[in-house]
């Protein structure tokens, strides 16, 4: 718990009602020379002041724990709020807010005791997503609901990522190497992120955490640990964040789905010590350079959390030129693009020309468009059929430049996983 910003006492609308009514009655009593309204006014005038005086005189500290459980579409949020012993937990008002990308079928359940408040919320992710669950707002409010005051907690928001479960094991696929000497390479990360290899003389530039202090004491010379990292290869994940004719709403949802899958993909490969780089192409290419380890995971997660759809449609060549500047050629590249118009199809040819063998994973807009359709019956069936034919044609055109996977079931990336696991099919690309 930290001493955060000041949280002053706030009067609630009920306080204004009580004080206004009390003052009005006091004046009526004086005007009519009738003390009866004055006796009714007295409790109403004094109650807000008494509530402010009997409550905590500064923002009460609370210990707040927040955790997320569940798998796939299920998001179970739970936690507890434990206030300072001087504060009755039943006077706390806890508000758990659902992020916009998740659905809240029923309001959260709150369980009160005198010492803590437990909360449970069952939310649903309608499609793969990365969502930040904000820290629940906790207010102290007097039992009458006249005054309230914010509390102080040091809890941090929790990021929940939901992506197709097939991505959890895709990291075992061996990627093309882009480093000149295959085999064991020195770990670039500080600490025990790789296999222990041996002890060597410390060099200038070694991190203090790498120094083996016991060995140094025994030998009388500064010695450092050396770790080796067996890497399977490198991967570049590119997200197409350019707008399409589908409209902002559908584009946003498809981009959100792509972000979640890209995060799942990067996590899976980082888990097996591969180097992963990320690029988000909107108007320009925002990159996270190739690296591995836990820090890289956090970097990539932050990049995806902060990524947003561009409002400008930039030329695909800009992406390829920029990618060539930041990443070595020959890198296995996975492009997430909706391929919903001709201009979004030109990303992979330009990348290929610049030396990036790309695989396009294309989240299909059809399920989203069909859900928003106002058609019904036979008209709907015909419209769906035509849309599928157009989509199939577009995927076939994209295949001419690079392998393209049509991703229409958002909770399954089986087709993509099957593709990267089968070398014969991969050879086709």
């Amino acid at each position, binding site marked *: 718990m930290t*001493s955060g910003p000041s949280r*002053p*006492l*706030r*009067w609630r*609308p*009920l*306080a204004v*009602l*009580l*004080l206004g*009514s009390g*003052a*009005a*009655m*006091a004046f*009526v009593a*004086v005007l*009519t020379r*009738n*003390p*009866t*309204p*004055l*006796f*009714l006014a*007295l*409790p*109403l*005038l*004094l*109650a*807000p*002041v*008494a*509530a*402010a*005086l*009997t*409550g905590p*005189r*500064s923002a009460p500290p609370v210990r707040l724990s927040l955790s997320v459980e569940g798998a796939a579409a299920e998001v179970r949020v739970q936690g507890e709020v434990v206030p300072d012993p001087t504060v*009755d937990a*039943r*006077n706390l*008002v806890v508000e758990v807010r659902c992020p916009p990308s998740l659905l809240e079928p*029923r*309001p959260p*359940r*709150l*369980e*009160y*005791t005198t010492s803590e408040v*437990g909360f449970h919320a069952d939310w649903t992710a309608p499609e793969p997503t990365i969502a930040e669950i904000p820290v629940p707002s906790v207010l102290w409010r*007097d*039992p*009458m*609901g*006249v*005054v309230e005051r914010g509390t102080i907690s040091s809890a941090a928001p929790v990021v929940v990522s939901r992506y197709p479960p097939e991505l959890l094991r895709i990291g075992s696929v061996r990627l093309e190497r882009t480093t000149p000497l295959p085999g064991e390479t020195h770990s670039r990360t500080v600490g025990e992120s790789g296999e222990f290899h041996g002890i060597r003389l410390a060099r200038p530039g070694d991190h203090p955490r790498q120094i083996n202090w016991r060995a140094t004491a025994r030998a009388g010379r500064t010695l450092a640990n050396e770790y080796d990292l067996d890497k399977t290869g490198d991967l570049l994940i590119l997200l197409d964040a350019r707008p399409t004719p589908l409209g902002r709403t559908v584009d946003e949802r498809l981009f959100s789905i792509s972000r979640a899958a890209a995060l799942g993909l990067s996590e899976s490969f980082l888990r097996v010590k591969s180097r992963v780089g990320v690029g988000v192409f909107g108007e320009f290419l925002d990159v996270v350079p190739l690296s591995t380890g836990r820090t890289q995971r956090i970097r990539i997660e932050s990049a995806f959390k902060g990524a947003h759809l561009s409002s400008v449609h930039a030329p695909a060549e800009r992406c390829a030129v920029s990618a060539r500047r930041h990443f070595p050629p020959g890198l296995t590249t996975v492009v997430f693009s909706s391929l919903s118009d001709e201009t979004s199809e030109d990303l992979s040819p330009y990348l290929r020309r610049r030396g990036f063998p790309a695989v396009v994973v294309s989240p299909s807009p059809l399920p989203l468009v069909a859900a928003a359709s106002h058609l019904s019956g036979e008209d709907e069936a015909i419209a769906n059929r035509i849309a599928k034919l157009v989509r199939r044609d577009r995927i076939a055109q994209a295949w001419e430049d690079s392998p393209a996977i049509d991703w229409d079931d958002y909770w399954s990336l089986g087709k993509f996983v099957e593709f990267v696991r089968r070398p014969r099919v991969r050879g086709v690309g």
Partner: protein
Amino acid sequence: MSAPATPSGVRAVRPVSLALLLAAAAALGYLSGYPGRLGPVVAVAGVVLAAALRATPWRTVAAYAPVPALAVLVLEAVASPVGLGVELIAGASGVAFLLWLADDPARPVGGSLRSLPTVAVPGLALGIAWSSAFFLPSGSVPLGVAGGLLALTVALVAFLVGRPQFFDREEA
């Protein structure tokens, strides 16, 4: 762990504080100057409407529940004749209204008990005021003193409402 604080559907009504408010409002209505039985009927109707608004599952509607209850109390107090019994009942109905406010069904049970330290302050002030009115002789001087104290109280309340940070205590 106790029962959920925000149950779905219609919220539970806490009967004790509601009965207290109903009785106090009906008594004030009976003693008020309205003809026939209009006073108690209006009082009961207002309190029942307030309780019904509060029991609705919609938060925005429930937030307006205190208005009808307060409105009938004001209407009856304004129309009441001068008398020590009426004054006592008017003050008691104000305290009962505060207790009813504390028994919000959207919050954990036992609100009225938890609010006793708060409600005790206006209750005590009411007791002193009524005792003064009962025991002290009436006249223009006590009335002037009472009027001066009232003006001072209103000014003090206005000052405190405008400066909520007055209630903050600096951490050591």
